[in-house]
C-alpha cells in the first residue's frame, strides 16, 4: 500500500500529481533545486526536500539524490511526472532495488519502447500496423518495384545514408518507379558516396494521433480514445485536442484496439501513449510508445471525465484494469502557454511575472505553477500554464478557448497566447484541416500595438 509519494518533478506537473495524491489521502514529498525554493509545488507539499543546485543534471536528473530524499522522508513510492527521469529504465530499477514503488512503466517496458527499432518489431509482431518498407536496402529497380507494388503506391525511395531530403524521391506509380529509383540512387551516390536506397510507404498528409492506454502489468489494458497532436513546431506540440476532427467512431475503435494489442503484448504497466501517423487515406502506422504520463493528458481527462494520475497510482498499488469502453463526451482542447515570444521565433522569455490572471468559468481548466510575482527560472522548460477547455462540440470548444485566451492575463514576460489566438481563429484550424507540417507554412500576423 502506498502512503507517501515523492514527486520527482517540478512545475505544473508536480502540482498536478500532488492534487491527486491529496485527494486520495496520500502524503506527498516535493523535491526541489535551489532555483525552485519558492515554487508552489514546494509550498503545497506535505514535505519538501532540496536536492541540488538549479541545473537539472545536478538535481532533478540525479537518481541518487532523489532516492536519498525518499529514504530520509520515508516515501514509499515515486511519481516521476514527464521528462526528467520518467522514461529512465535504470531509475525505475533503482527504485525497485530500494523497495520504492516507481509509479510508471516497468524497466523492461521502458527499455523496450525506448529503442525505436525493437519497439517497431514488437508492435509488428503483435499485429499493429507500422509504416511498411523494404527489409533494408534494395539492390535493383526491379526488386524495388516488386516491393513497391506489394505495399502499394505512392512510395518513397530513400538513401540509406540519407537525410535532409537529398537522395529521396517520391514514386506515385509503377510507370515512373524506375526513373525515380535511378535518380534517388544517383543523388545518394553523389551526396553521400553510397548509392544504397530503401523503399518506404509514403504517408501523405500525416497527422499525429495518439491513443492513451492504461495497463496493469498482467496484459490487461484499456484505451481512452485519441488525442490529435498535429499542431507542432519543430516536433514540439503546441495544441492538442480530443477527439481528433478526422477520427470517427470506427477508426477510433480500430486504432484503440491496435494500441491495446501492442501494449498488452508487452504486459504494459501504468499509463502510456501509443503514437500513430494517420495518413489522409485513413491508414495509420505505429510511430512510438511513450511510457509516461504526457503533458497533454488533460484533454483526455476532460472528455472521459477521469483522473489519469489516479489510475496510475491505483495500478501501482496493484489494482487490476477492468476491460470497458470509455466514451468521449464533448470536445476538449489544450493550449500550451509558454514563456516565449511567438513574434521573435518563439525565443524563450524567462523573467518576473508581474500580473497573472488565469481564465475561469464553466468548462475551463488551468494547470499552472505560475502566479503574480513568480520568477520564471531560465534553467527549465518554458511552459508556464496549460489552458484546457471542454464544450459539447469542437466549434463550441474553439469559441470557449478563444474567450479563455482573451481573458488570460500574463504581464511581465512574452507568452504564446497571441499565437494561439491567431491559430484558433484561422480557417484551417477551425475546419480541422491540418497535418504535422501545418505550422511550417502558418504565417503569424504582427502583433497589435
Amino acid at each position, binding site marked *: 500500500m502506498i502512503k507517501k509519494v515523492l514527486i520527482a518533478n517540478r512545475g505544473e506537473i508536480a502540482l498536478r500529481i500532488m492534487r491527486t495524491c491529496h485527494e486520495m489521502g496520500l502524503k506527498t514529498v516535493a523535491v526541489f533545486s535551489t532555483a525552485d525554493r*519558492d515554487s508552489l509545488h514546494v509550498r503545497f507539499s*506535505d514535505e519538501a*526536500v*532540496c536536492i541540488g543546485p538549479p541545473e537539472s543534471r545536478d538535481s532533478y536528473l540525479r537518481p541518487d539524490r532523489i532516492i*536519498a530524499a525518499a*529514504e*530520509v522522508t520515508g516515501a514509499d513510492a515515486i511519481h516521476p511526472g514527464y521528462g526528467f527521469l520518467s522514461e529512465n529504465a535504470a531509475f525505475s530499477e533503482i527504485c525497485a532495488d530500494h523497495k520504492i514503488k516507481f509509479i510508471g512503466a516497468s524497466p523492461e517496458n521502458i527499455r523496450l519502447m525506448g529503442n525505436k527499432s525493437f519497439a517497431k518489431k514488437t508492435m509488428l509482431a503483435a499485429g499493429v500496423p507500422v509504416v511498411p518498407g523494404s527489409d533494408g536496402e534494395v539492390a535493383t529497380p526491379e526488386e524495388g518495384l516488386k516491393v513497391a507494388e506489394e505495399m502499394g503506391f505512392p512510395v518513397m525511395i530513400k538513401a540509406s545514408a540519407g537525410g535532409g531530403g537529398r537522395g529521396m524521391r517520391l514514386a506515385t506509380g509503377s510507370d515512373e518507379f524506375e526513373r525515380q529509383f535511378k535518380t534517388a540512387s544517383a543523388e545518394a551516390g553523389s551526396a553521400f558516396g553510397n548509392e544504397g536506397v530503401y523503399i518506404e510507404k509514403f504517408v501523405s498528409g500525416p497527422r499525429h494521433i495518439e491513443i492513451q492506454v492504461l495497463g496493469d502489468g498482467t496484459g490487461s489494458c484499456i484505451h481512452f480514445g485519441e488525442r490529435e497532436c498535429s499542431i507542432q513546431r519543430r516536433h514540439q506540440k503546441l495544441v492538442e485536442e480530443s477527439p481528433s476532427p478526422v477520427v470517427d467512431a470506427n477508426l477510433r475503435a480500430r486504432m484503440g484496439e491496435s494500441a491495446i494489442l501492442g501494449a498488452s503484448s508487452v504486459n504494459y504497466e501504468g499509463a502510456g501513449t501509443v503514437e500513430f501517423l494517420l495518413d489522409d487515406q485513413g491508414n495509420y502506422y505505429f510511430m512510438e510508445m511513450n511510457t509516461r504520463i504526457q503533458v497533454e493528458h488533460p484533454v483526455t481527462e476532460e472528455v472521459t471525465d477521469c483522473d489519469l494520475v489516479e489510475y496510475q497510482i491505483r495500478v501501482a498499488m496493484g489494482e487490476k484494469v477492468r476491460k470497458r469502453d470509455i466514451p468521449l463526451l464533448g470536445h476538449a482542447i489544450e493550449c500550451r502557454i509558454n514563456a516565449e515570444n511567438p513574434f521573435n521565433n518563439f525565443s524563450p522569455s524567462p523573467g518576473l511575472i508581474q500580473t497573472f490572471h488565469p481564465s475561469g468559468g464553466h468548462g475551463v481548466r488551468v494547470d499552472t505553477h505560475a502566479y503574480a510575482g513568480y520568477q520564471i527560472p531560465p534553467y527549465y522548460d518554458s511552459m508556464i500554464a496549460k489552458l484546457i477547455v471542454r464544450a459539447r462540440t469542437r466549434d463550441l470548444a474553439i469559441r470557449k478557448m478563444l474567450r479563455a485566451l482573451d481573458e488570460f492575463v500574463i504581464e511581465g514576460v512574452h507568452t504564446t497566447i497571441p499565437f494561439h489566438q491567431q491559430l484558433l481563429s484561422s480557417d484551417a484550424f477551425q475546419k480541422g484541416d491540418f497535418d504535422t507540417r501545418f505550422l511550417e507554412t502558418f504565417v503569424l500576423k504582427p502583433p497589435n500595438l
Partner: protein
Amino acid sequence: MNLDRLREIIVLVEESGVSEIEIEEDGLRIVVRKDSPRPATAPEPQIVAPVIASPATSDEESTVSDTTEDPGQKIHAPIVGTYFSAPSPDSDPFITVGQRVKPGDVLCIIEAMKLMNEIESEVSGVVLEILVENGVPVEFDQPLFVIETT
C-alpha cells in the same frame, strides 16, 4: 555617495532577495539588480514545511567548495541524506566546537542510498558551531557547520 555605501546596498540586495533596488538621492541614481531574484510577492518561505529539521535558510551561494576568506563561513550539505557526526555509534565525533580543521579532514558522514559519504573540509579554520544533530536528515545546501577561516 561613497563606495562603501554602494557596497552596503549591493550587500543589502544580495541578502534581501529582492530583484531590484533603486535609489535616487541628490541627483545620484543607483539601480542594483540581481539575476535570479526572489520576488516580493512570492509565498513566504516559512510556510514551506520541509521535513528537514534545520532547513537551509542561508542566502549565500557558498558551498563547501567555497573558499572565500570570510570568518564564520558556513559549510553546507553537498547532498541529501542522513547526517552522522561520528564514524560509528560508539566512536568519538569527527569534530567538536573549538577544534581546528584543515582541507581533507573528515567533518561528518552523510548516508544516502546506503552509502556512507564522508564529507571533507575544503577550508582551514576553527569549528565555531555545529548546526545539526547526529542522525537527522539533511537536505542539499543545508548549513552544517560554521568554521572561522583565518
